[in-house]
């Protein structure tokens, strides 16, 4: 159905004097929003869309991977936030969840998987092993933290973290995507 009135210029009745820019009949952004029209930049729109459709790489290393699977299952249900499309191929994924201990033998594979993912891409380190090596930090075979191998965006503490914490971490990544100017986590504490 075609609109009969021009919703951008509904009050156009004629050009008054003293308004050379001719802005008197434009609606304010608030008025436009109430009519279902938004002004934004393409960059903002892209970031908003990406935040709702992150595709994680299905990539489990150790214990935390089991809690990661639990998060996608019925009780915690990550798909409420749009994160449930786990891809088996790194070429289709944009978030890498490092869930578990990275060992020296696994290190080249993790690095390769990261480089195989297309830009833009993000990394979440789940659990103390991926943060710093955790209880295995002084082992001869363990890489002390995922950030020694790939750049990490969000760290989720726990050994292993509960599924609620993993969901919170994913939401933090979403906040980071939408507000890249923020340097720190901003929480609404009531």
């Amino acid at each position: 159905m075609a609109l009969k009135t021009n919703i951008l210029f509904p009050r156009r009745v004629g050009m008054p004097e003293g308004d050379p820019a001719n802005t008197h009949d434009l609606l304010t952004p608030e008025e436009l929003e109430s009519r279902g029209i938004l002004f934004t930049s393409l960059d903002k729109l892209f970031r908003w869309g990406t935040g709702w459709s992150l595709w994680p790489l299905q990539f489990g290393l150790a214990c935390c991977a089991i809690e990661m699977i639990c998060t996608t299952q019925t009780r915690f249900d990550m798909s409420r936030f749009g994160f449930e499309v786990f891809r088996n191929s790194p070429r289709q994924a944009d978030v890498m969840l490092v869930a578990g201990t990275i060992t020296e033998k696994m290190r080249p594979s993790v690095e390769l998987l990261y480089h195989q993912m297309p830009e833009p891409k993000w990394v979440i380190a789940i659990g103390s092993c991926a943060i710093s090596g955790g209880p295995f930090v002084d082992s001869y075979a363990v890489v002390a933290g995922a950030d020694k191998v790939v750049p990490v965006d969000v760290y989720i503490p726990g050994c292993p973290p509960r599924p609620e914490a993993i969901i919170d971490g994913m939401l933090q990544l979403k906040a980071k995507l939408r507000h890249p100017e923020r340097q720190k986590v901003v929480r609404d504490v009531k």
Partner: protein
Amino acid sequence: MNTETNKQGRYSEVYQLNFGPQHPSTHGVLHMLVEMDGETCIGVDTKIGYLHRGMEKLLESRTYLQGLPYTDRLDYLAGVNNNLPYVLAVEKLLGVEVPARASLLRMLTCEIMRLASYMVGVGIYIMDLGAVSGVFYPFQEREYALDCMSALCGARMTQSYIRYGGVQADINEEFDVAYQKLVAETPRFIEMYHKLVDENEIFLRRTKGIGVISAEDAMDYALTGPNLRASGVDYDLRRDAPYCLYDRFKIEVPVLTAGDCYARYVQRMLEVEKIFQLIKEIYAALKEEPAGEIMAKIPKVLKPAAGEAYAQTENPKGIMGCLVASEGKLNPLRVHFRRPSFDNIAIFEKIMPGHKVADLVSIIASFDIVLGEIDG
């Protein structure tokens, strides 16, 4: 289909296929180098160590109490079941008598986590064969089991609930509520899951007659746990060499003879029923047991006498053994684990040749392996 063979009697040039370490159906980071003739596997080289964290070496530099939480991270699907052999071995060195109530609590938690572990084993198996809906129900059931553990000791997966000389906490009201939920849901789940999976045509085609293990082979390759019992060997440590207070209960052990992938699935589902019965019996016994100590008197600083002790338990994946050698110092001289998944996968190179690639997925999944345990 091409039926002509070349000079070597092959259908095609032999090539190698890398299976893993990042592959959705290798249950983590198992890597297999498969030699292929066309689509048929003619040889398998299993490469492990992608999750090797040097657990046994680390335990040598930790005190006994510091070392206990590491055992949870071996077979992380059933944390308390791994605590048990280590604790039992150290208790042998200490010469501690564990209170009956603590023993019952140990058994109760072990059986609950065994149920949870079987749920993952069955659910992931069905998912690896392509039935995504088959994984939701076992994981929902597993959540009820984890709720019990969460109410009891606060942790979902890596509990470290079993301590030297006893257990961490006694059952509470919150546990009772979670337990009643588990008891109410499990029979419903078992009945529903049998209807969902057992006679599915695709499932039958992909599992029946695949990866057959004879009883002799199973014993030669030291298989243990459900994989052994599915091949017709009637052996369960809980009944044949009881530890804790398992001799108080009548342990029923289902045994199947087919030894194929389907038998291993059915074996797990049958055992789930028996585990559920056992959980109810142990809980009833625990309620009759008078309230009392759940920890034996042990010194604050553990210094077991010099010597060696070995203890073994029946874990969800098979027999878990633990050897602890002590010099009478604060930390053990040597700790070694007999890790069931590690011994179970040795038979892959025997049974896999002759199968197609899709069947390899079925065989790996039917063994219910855990990489944390294989690599240590």
